[in-house]
């Protein structure tokens, strides 16, 4: 891959090996969930509830990370839970990313009143508490992964719109935009075929960095009971269910927690690195 060759030229920007390692784990789990998980994640074994991990007394190699209060294998549930995390985060980002990018392009390119309107709307939007909206939507449509995606989708666009607008403001002054105009290009075409490819780097970087945040948020929502509902496997949900047994079965919350940490760390490290490699001008540090 070309990206890797850049590490020498850019001096000091090394690929985050640990980050890739974490993501490797995550994506292996997502892709091969059915192959590598030892049990069906929703199949309980009521004779073997709350079994400790293998290395503890009473633990068996049959359930390496132990079982939960219904006798379901923790490892299998964590592996399958990765799919839900990816589904929700990608869903959210596609949803509000595209919304934000379109509004940002229009705002930055048109300028004037349109810009004013969209940006003030974004300010207003940022002041709305997302969690209240989520409560509201969850009570109307019922808590589910779909509700989370829609809520975050509605709430998240201002960040994208602002970044894209900022880039657009400087890009539209560039000569190639003028050239496109001289050639008789329509505004819509300039926006989407000339400016959009130029902001794509930024969008990808932002998305990678945000995946981590969304996974944490989703876990929080599920933990609060507003997200995915049993019996689907979700890391946040596992935390919520294990919480009441924490005093004598620490593994119920610890392993899903570690899974969240590893994944988020992986996305964040990779995102930071991508930013440095793909966009050396924009140092957000």
């Amino acid at each position, binding site marked *: 891959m070309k990206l890797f060759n850049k590490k020498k030229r850019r001096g000091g920007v090394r690929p985050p090996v640990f980050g890739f390692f974490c993501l490797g784990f995550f994506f292996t789990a997502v892709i091969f969930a059915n192959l590598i998980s030892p049990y069906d994640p929703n199949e309980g074994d009521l004779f073997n509830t709350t079994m400790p991990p293998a290395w503890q007394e009473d633990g068996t190699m049959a359930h390496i990370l132990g079982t939960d209060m219904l006798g379901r294998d923790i490892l299998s549930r964590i592996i399958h839970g990765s799919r839900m995390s990816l589904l929700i985060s990608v869903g959210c980002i596609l949803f509000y990313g595209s919304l934000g990018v379109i509004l940002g392009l229009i705002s930055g390119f048109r*300028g004037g009143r349109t810009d004013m309107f969209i940006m003030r709307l974004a300010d207003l939007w940022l002041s709305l508490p997302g969690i209240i909206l989520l409560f509201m939507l969850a009570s109307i449509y019922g808590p589910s992964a779909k509700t989370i995606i829609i809520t975050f989708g509605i709430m998240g666009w201002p960040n994208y719109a602002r970044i894209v607008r900022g880039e657009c403001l400087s890009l539209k002054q560039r000569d*190639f935009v003028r050239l496109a105009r*001289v*050639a*008789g290009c329509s505004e819509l075409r300039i926006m989407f075929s000339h400016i959009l*490819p130029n902001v794509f780097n930024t969008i990808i970087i932002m998305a990678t960095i945000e995946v981590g945040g969304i996974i944490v948020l989703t876990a929080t929502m599920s933990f609060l009971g507003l997200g995915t509902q049993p019996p689907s496997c979700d890391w946040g949900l596992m935390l919520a269910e294990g919480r009441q047994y924490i005093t004598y079965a620490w593994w119920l919350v610890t392993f899903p927690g570690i899974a969240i940490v590893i994944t988020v760390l992986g996305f964040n490290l990779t995102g930071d690195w991508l930013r440095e490699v793909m966009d050396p001008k924009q140092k957000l540090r």
Partner: protein
Amino acid sequence: MQTNQDNILELQNVTTTFFTKQGEVKAVDDVSFRVGKGETVGLVGESGCGKSVTSLSIMRLVPQPAGKIVSGKILFRNEDLMQKTEEEMRHLRGDRLSMILQDPMVAMNQLLTVGKQLGEPYVFHDKVKGSLQGMCIDLLRKVKVPAPESRVNDYPFQFSGGMSQRALIAMGIANNPDLLIADEPTTALDVTIATQVLKLMKEIQGETNSSIILITHDLATVAQICTRVLVMYAGRIVESAPIKTFYKNPAHPYSVGLIQSVPVLGRSVERLASISGQPPSLFAMPEGCRFAPRCDKAHKKCFKAYPPKTQLEDDHSAACWLYVKD
């Protein structure tokens, strides 16, 4: 100035103003000129005298909302461009009315292939016949880019400066425009490449019979390809002359100064003549002739009122009090 059937473009008292926080700036002030069919007109003047704004005014692409064409008529093929809607303008741009931008290295989108951008004038104006790729290759061949078949898929950064400029010219002439505005097409190029590019433009003009407005501050460039010269100073046209008259017998003191400041091969001079002083600030235009403070022939009258345009010979006019007979 009467409307002439042979004119492709005629500007009548065009004034373009920029409204800034520091005040209003008339970048183009009461400019009138005409361009005939198949004619090559050089528009010369120093930096910031309004050459580029004039060309943007013709294209109706003056940066909004700061700038505005406040008055005047721009007749293109006897139709007033000022009356056109943005939509109608878009159909003209890149089709009948085209422009070559200054800096070829930054004028192209670095993320799209040259071919893709070359094809744009065809795509927007529904002129694609057969394969678009083939049309782009033909265009590149026309401007003498070597190996156009493979070059068409290159990205702009893979092109040298001269080749980029050729590609831009190709884009400008794609639809055989009636008028081609070349805004300093050779400024970013070295002399040998510049000469080639100018030659190329001349050749293409011979084939397509389009008119060219060549904007430059380089008198040598003008001498190479233009048939008529317009000299611009501080937002106004001070002299208009056929090319030979301009070099042999310039009328306006500013034109005289410009020509004297060009070094001539083989003529040894102690020190090259230059025009002393600075062009006036656009915010504080002198009341009278704008060149008066720098002019060695200035007299009282020059500081009081702006001189009217005086016809000296056929096709040769200047705005200077020296030629006004009472």
